[in-house]
């Protein structure tokens, strides 16, 4: 039972254009969402996050959009740069019963982004 899905295994984009990475989830208890970026031979690094009380969060070239009714989130990178080429994972976390803490992260399978010069 895969609760977080990234249906596109790979994405190829030209430098300067927009990259859009998508993620779908099934668990309605998920309340906090994160994107991680991973370069080869390195661990994932945190990129950007969004809480379910928002529908958009922006940080420089990176923007995450959340559509709770569709259980869908997306990461937009504008403009894309060759250094953005990496594997991108979305992850989701529920808010624990009692509303006092966030639970464990569940990751998607990842999308390989390649930005061509």
């Amino acid at each position, binding site marked *: 039972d895969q609760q977080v899905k990234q249906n596109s295994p790979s994405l190829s984009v030209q430098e300067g254009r927009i990259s859009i990475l998508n993620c779908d989830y099934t668990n309605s208890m998920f309340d906090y969402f994160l994107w991680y970026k991973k370069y080869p031979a390195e*661990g994932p690094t945190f990129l950007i996050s969004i809480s379910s009380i928002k529908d958009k969060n922006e940080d420089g070239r990176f923007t995450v959009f959340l559509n709770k009714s569709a259980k869908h989130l997306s990461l937009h990178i504008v403009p894309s740069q060759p250094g953005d080429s990496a594997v991108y994972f979305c992850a989701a976390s529920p808010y624990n019963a009692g509303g006092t803490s966030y639970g464990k*992260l569940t990751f998607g*399978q990842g999308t390989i982004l390649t930005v061509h010069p």
Partner: protein
Amino acid sequence: EAGVAQSPRYKIIEKRQSVAFWCNPISGHATLYWYQQILGQGPKLLIQFQNNGVVDDSQLPKDRFSAERLKGVDSTLKIQPAKLEDSAVYLCASSLKGATAKNIQYFGAGTRLSVL
């Protein structure tokens, strides 16, 4: 600030052998996580420690996997005996506030295990 340190980086063993991985989290981080990442999949949580206590080990195959976090700092993950399907990258992560708001986890580079 030093990141999450893991060793070894690579390990090749034969099935039924035992193996151990070590992790040193970021200084001051109370929560430590071990993940298993099989090729083509996202990381899957094996066990979560808060200081030296286990918070979640629901996905840890306890018949062969064990983990400990002595003194609430370093941690070791052991597999005994290893199976072919244990071939994966084992990632260690730590977070400052534990299971609280903004559960941002910081990952080490991982240990790539090949079981032959």
